[in-house]
């Protein structure tokens, strides 16, 4: 490696500059996200092993089949509501990309506009989650309580709800932190902090975090609702 870099003009690894051409904060964010990925990985693998070591498991299509203001007696709507939630979160990732892009162009107006949309998306997702949790709670589900039978009709262990609330809760906490971070970014943008610095790099870091949280949701969604 030393010999190749010594002959090429860009001596990325030779000291005096960042080998990846990024400032330290972004590098730190990447390592933090790797670390966080291990936290979620550990949760999801724990969930998977417990589930496969258990003889029966509730059917997600039956558990998650409601939505707000659903008319009494109407036919179940499996996974409709969570699909909308997921869609909202993914759209908020798109608006985040647009905010970062506007930052590259030093377009303050664009940054503000798309950050607000991203924050709204995050809040909408959290609202949906709050509704879903309340709904499940009223059906008798909570940590340590599971009213849903296994798909074969036998009595289920409580680990379905235990893992569901723990992992979606932990993810929701991440979304909440992301919203807080985005609000801080928005305030800083409104007060021209980034204009003064001459760059919107901080938005990029917030964006990395936001995309990560979205990506994690895809896995959580798959594990709890689809499989």
């Amino acid at each position, binding site marked *: *490696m*030393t010999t190749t*870099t010594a002959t090429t003009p860009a*001596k990325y*690894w*030779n*000291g*005096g*500059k*960042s*080998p*990846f*051409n*990024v*400032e*330290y*904060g*972004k*590098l*730190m964010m990447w*390592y*933090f996200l*790797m*670390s*966080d990925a*291990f*936290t*979620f*990985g*550990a*949760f999801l693998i*724990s969930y998977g*092993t*417990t589930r496969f*070591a*258990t003889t029966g498991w509730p059917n997600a299509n039956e558990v998650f089949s409601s939505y707000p203001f659903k008319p009494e007696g109407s036919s179940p709507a499996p996974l409709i509501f969570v699909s909308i939630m997921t869609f909202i979160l993914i759209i908020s990732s798109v608006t985040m990309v647009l905010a970062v892009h506007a930052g*590259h*162009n*030093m377009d303050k107006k664009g940054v503000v506009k798309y950050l607000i949309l991203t924050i709204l998306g995050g809040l909408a997702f959290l609202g949906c989650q709050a509704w879903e949790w309340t709904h499940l709670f009223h059906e008798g589900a909570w*940590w*340590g*309580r599971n009213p849903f039978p296994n798909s074969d009709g036998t009595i289920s*262990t*409580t*680990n379905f709800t*235990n*893992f569901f609330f*723990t992992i979606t809760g*932990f993810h929701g906490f991440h979304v909440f932190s992301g919203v807080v971070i985005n609000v801080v970014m928005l305030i800083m943008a409104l007060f021209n902090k980034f204009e003064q*610095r*001459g*760059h*919107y*790099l901080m938005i*990029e870091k917030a964006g990395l975090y936001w995309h990560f949280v979205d990506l994690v949701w895809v896995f959580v969604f798959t594990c709890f609702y689809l499989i």
Partner: protein
Amino acid sequence: MSNEATLHANVDVMVPHEIHHGEHHEIHHHHESFISKYVFSQDHKMIGKQFLITGMFWAVLGGLMSVLFRLQLGYPDSTFPWLEDLIGKWGKGGHISAEAYYALVTTHGTVLVFFVLTAGLSGTFANLLIPLQVGARDMASPFMNMLSYWFFFMASVVMLSSIFVETGPFSGGWTAYPPLSALGSASPGSKTGMDLWIIAMALFVVSSLLGGLNYIVTILNMRTKGMSMTRLPLTIWALFFTAVLGVLSFPVLLSGFILLIFDRNFGTSFYLSDIYVNGVGALPNEGGSAILFQHLFWFLGHPEVYIILLPAMGMVSEILATNARKPIFGYMAMVGSLFAIAILAFLVWAHHMFVTGLNPFLGSIFVLLTLLIAVPSAIKVFNWITTLWRGNIRFTPAMLFAIGFVSLFISGGLTGIWLGNSALDIHLHDTYFVIAHFHIVMGVASMFGMFAGIYHWFPKMYGKYLNNNLGYIHFWLTMIGAYLIFWPMHYEGLAGMPRRYYDYSAWESFKQFVELNRFISTVAMIVFAVQLLFLFNFFYSIFKGRKLTTQNPWGSNTLEWTTPINPGHGNWVGEIPEVYRWAYDYGKDGKDFIPQTTPVGADESTDH
């Protein structure tokens, strides 16, 4: 990234804001308040000292605990009335109670592994050495670095407070296996003590994350001009892999703890199933598995032992080369073996679980991966010995401790190979053989690495020398004592003597070890006393030690010795020096040593 942004980013990268700050300080004789200099300091050198002193506090307390429980093991029939004065109801009638014994063993293990040999070791030397040896004014984020210490401090306060609660500190072993850790009703220590234990450990994880991220990006991003990765001193490589291990393994422990908190407080069954508990009856829980916690714990636990060992390895490499006046043998092999160890560290955790009912086929895969660690370990040992070979050795106390480290690492590594065979482990698991193995290879060896580091870098930390004669006494008594304490434990373990028992006198088969246990306990107390000698040397020398008269007392090549004797915040007055060579040009071309800052001469051959 747009061009402007890239440019700006690079300005940030190349000229960290501390530069101006640092130079400013040097020139104007800054006015720092006591608070900003000694308490909420953002200077990596001061933070390193804070970690060191806090670590030393815990080492004394943890060591004292081991003296107390060795008292029980060595003299189970004697009574010590002063115990009741010291620890109250835990020592009623001059006898340590069973609960107190388990609480002592658990707290000893936890604080020595995490607070002393992780925070006290990495925290101290990563902070002190990374900016100094890569040529940076400070860490990438001095503020996060400060937070890292204060999270550790809070963890310490919470852990300390757990010793004083009514029901005592946690007593289920440093590995905190459920059900003891998950059921408040399981034992006195499982109540408030365990809550505090988890809180302390969670704070500790945050501290280690904040520190680790900083160490990684500082090493990658803030190396001075010319300091390519292959010119880094081995200390830095070791600290780099340590930080990566920590950043990737502690979060898994955190997940495990979160599930544990739910099991303890919210009626979940992640780790609990319908077991029967004496005095409580059958549990209502269903479907959980205690083994799940073991997986999560050891996924951190095994990397953790290397988090403890790697910094010691790095410092030892540096100290051996410096004091043998020879280049380190096989630099790239040293880096490669560190890398291999870091990778393998993630792939062997189940060797702690061979007897949990693990599928024997899976076990055999873990045997293979575990024994593979012997390869990079052996490479390192051979390279250290070859570095010493025909060296012009200066036996400073640091050098003695470094050589002692190599000896201990060999002794303890060899028993690892026994344990790594799952068939042998059926006999050896949970016996004193394991205790002997990990105390020698991890506990004492890393302690030796830490001592070596302290003796070697004390002049950089305080501008004074430690007293050499006290250092020699400290070394020899500790070295001999450590072997006398832990070597016999192999025999006890081979004879089947289990670990974590309160009193062995009820077993006919262990009567033969009564004398031996007494002997071990006696030596343990002597060795503990010798450490107090070191403490005296340390604090006395800070104030009254012989003053340094030269910037580079050991004739070293690395950058920290190009700073002033008492460097200010910012480390170098004026420009940061540029680097032209690796750190190990000792005894080259008839020169005793050539610092990294010396440009390569016209007729000099370079290999790095």
